């Protein structure tokens, strides 16, 4: 899947993508192995269930408090960053955000950008946008570098190249970087680093994401393991950070539980190798750092989620990826099948806000509602109930009430609505229900062996000879 458009006019072809992914045994093995590994790593970080629950509740409260005063905190963040010398830009859409970045690029006549990891820049398709305008964007995160070489999107929000094994990366480097074929992982990483190293010094601008934006101090906080994030944000003369408006937290103290939850949930690390805190451009007496720091705050549908008390919980997300690591659907099909920037359970509830339900209507139904995502979410986002809510929005008659969601009613079908009305009638009319079940059991011989999709992988279920209603009546009498 090479760079599908950010806002496809057609519904995302989720089902077809999923079918193709399921037919790829290598992909399935890679994901099963990787997800099992990550689940074990997380489990080992939280040996004490009670402590985990206390921390999750704490994390949830910190995020809920930040969101409860989001407009105020964003203003405070803007004021404090500005006071520190960071230039703050606001963008409602990805087009606006890209135009802002391009404006900065043009002012500096920049030709080369080096990037740290940023899912928001993926949301913006920044590389593509700037590439079209003659600006070269190079990903410096090893996983991002690999998927960029393959002209793919990240398959996971934390581990972009998790869908690949060492052999596939070896072949890629051999083909694209003109090096000897080796499956030695340490050597592969060295090859990647050697390729990237000089690029940091050639870049005119460094771009990064933000893990937490701290309103109280006007600080951008980034976690990373490879050092490329620090290089990207300090070596080039200009640094542009891009982030969603929901990433703001009130104060430095709030970051402590969130960081602990983030790294342990994501990669099973107690802490990452680097925690970067950026509060200003280079000061007069400082030896390094960029002369200019910009922050682009992107909305892109987030304020739609914010406006609804229930859906607002979507914005609690701290982008750890634990929900996808534990999702049986994601484990089977991998990240690309979703056809969206954010895959997995969180992607199913956040993407409809970004793209509308018209193009994402299959996503909320692509869940067995097993609840694994909600169980592991470090900030207690009730993902299954938000999926259910989005299903409700998708089948709600389009004009019934003021729209809660862009694309409300995208899955509305008169026929399906009639079926559920009939189902209600059946289940609220005891005589009718018993007659229907009676008929169902008596006519079980007529049950077709093929009942559509169900019987592709299973035999058709067979009604029993008599219902429990009948058996119980015989045993207990009429009640």
């Amino acid at each position, binding site marked *: 899947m090479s760079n599908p458009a950010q806002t496809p006019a057609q519904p995302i072809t989720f089902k077809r993508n999923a079918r193709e992914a399921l037919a790829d045994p290598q992909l399935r093995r890679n994901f099963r192995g990787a997800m099992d590994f990550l689940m074990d790593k997380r489990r080992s970080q939280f040996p004490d269930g009670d402590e985990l629950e206390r921390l999750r509740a704490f994390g949830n409260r910190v995020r809920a408090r930040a969101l409860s005063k989001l407009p105020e905190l964003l203003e405070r963040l803007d004021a404090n960053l500005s006071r520190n010398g960071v230039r703050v830009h606001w963008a409602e859409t990805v087009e606006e955000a890209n135009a802002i970045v391009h404006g900065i690029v043009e002012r500096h006549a920049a030709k080369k950008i080096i990037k740290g990891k940023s899912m928001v820049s993926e949301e913006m398709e920044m590389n593509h946008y700037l590439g079209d305008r003659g600006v070269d964007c190079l990903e410096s995160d090893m996983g991002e570098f690999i998927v960029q070489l393959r002209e793919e999107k990240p398959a996971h929000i934390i581990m972009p190249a998790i869908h690949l094994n060492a052999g596939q990366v070896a072949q890629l480097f051999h083909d694209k970087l003109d090096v000897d074929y080796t499956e030695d992982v340490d050597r592969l990483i060295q090859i990647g680093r050697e390729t990237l190293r000089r690029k940091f010094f050639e870049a005119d601008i460094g771009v990064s994401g933000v893990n937490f934006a701290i309103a109280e101090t006007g600080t951008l906080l980034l976690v990373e393991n490879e050092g490329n994030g620090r290089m990207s944000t300090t070596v080039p003369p200009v640094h542009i950070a891009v982030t969603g408006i929901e990433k703001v937290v009130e104060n430095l103290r709030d970051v402590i539980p969130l960081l602990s939850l983030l790294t342990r949930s994501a990669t099973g690390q107690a802490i990452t190798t680097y925690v970067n805190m950026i509060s200003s451009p280079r000061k007069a007496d400082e030896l390094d750092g960029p002369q200019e720091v910009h922050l682009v705050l992107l909305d892109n549908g987030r304020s739609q989620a914010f406006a609804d008390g229930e859906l607002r919980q979507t914005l609690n997300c701290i982008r750890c990826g634990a929900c996808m690591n534990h999702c049986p659907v994601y484990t089977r099909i991998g990240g690309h099948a979703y056809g969206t920037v954010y895959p997995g359970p969180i992607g199913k509830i956040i993407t409809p806000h970004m793209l509308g339900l018209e193009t994402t209507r299959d996503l909320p139904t692509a869940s067995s509602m097993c609840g694994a995502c909600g169980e592991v979410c470090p900030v207690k986002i009730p993902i299954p109930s938000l999926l259910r809510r989005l299903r409700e929005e998708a089948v709600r008659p389009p004009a019934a009430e003021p729209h809660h969601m862009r694309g409300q009613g995208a899955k509305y079908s008169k026929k399906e609505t009639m079926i559920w009305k009939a189902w209600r009638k059946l289940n609220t009319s005891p005589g009718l229900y018993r007659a229907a079940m009676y008929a169902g059991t008596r006519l079980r011989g007529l049950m077709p062996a093929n009942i559509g999709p169900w019987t592709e992988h299973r035999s058709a279920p067979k009604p029993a000879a008599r*219902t429990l209603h009948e058996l119980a009546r015989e045993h207990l009498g009429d009640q």
Partner: protein
Amino acid sequence: MSHLPSAPANATRVAPPLESGRAYPAKPADVYLFGTCVVDVFFPGAGMDAIRLLEREGVRVHFPQAQSCCGQPAYTSGYTDEAREVARAQLALFAGEWPVVVPSGSCAGMFRHHYFELFKDEPETLEQVESLAERTFELAEFLLEVCKVRLEDGGAPVKVALHTSCSARREMNTHLHGRALLAQLAGVERVDHDHESECCGFGGSFSVRMPDISGAMVRDKTAALKGSGAAEVVSADCGCLLNINGCFEKQGDALRGEHLASFLLRRTSSAAQGGTK
């Protein structure tokens, strides 16, 4: 049971948090059985075995003949109004003081947690919802915690794999109750299977709307169950059993999952051992 935390006796009358333990009443003289629509049509024997297990504990079972479905299929499909009206019909049928025993974690979870969402805008109904939620027990949970059942195994030694539904595990917190009941059976060796806590892929309409993904999940589940070396498969949820058994059958495998109630009754019935205590 000591393995589950207990809520304080004066637990507040609000929606119980999903992770919480709960306070259990003394064994009552009467209970309702909510059979569930899947049990009604596809596994009525499991429903009858649940009734017999309860009666053997000296509990009188009431089965309101007007019951139908808990409303979950419409609820999870987004048809909230339809789900609410079906739920309202069940609320009226189980309005007495007796506990409601459900041989399914999924439908029990609907009663205990999701009716609050359905009736959140009807304060006059919420009292009934709270009462039903407090009185709803999954069958294994009720047998163990309320009846304090003591099972005597009359069957031959056997290896058994237990599949726990996601609702039992994550909504009802009753995934350990089935284990504890099986542990009472001397001849039963419970064996673990790979990815035991992972969904079997049923998910109601999910299995029809996303047949490929659901099919991959259930094939992995049946492979794991077979790989465990178990001779028998037991579950307390008939939705999962419909899915798992259908997959076994399609693959030409002789293995079939059985409802926990049927398994327990079979192992402890007079035919197996000549009477229980």
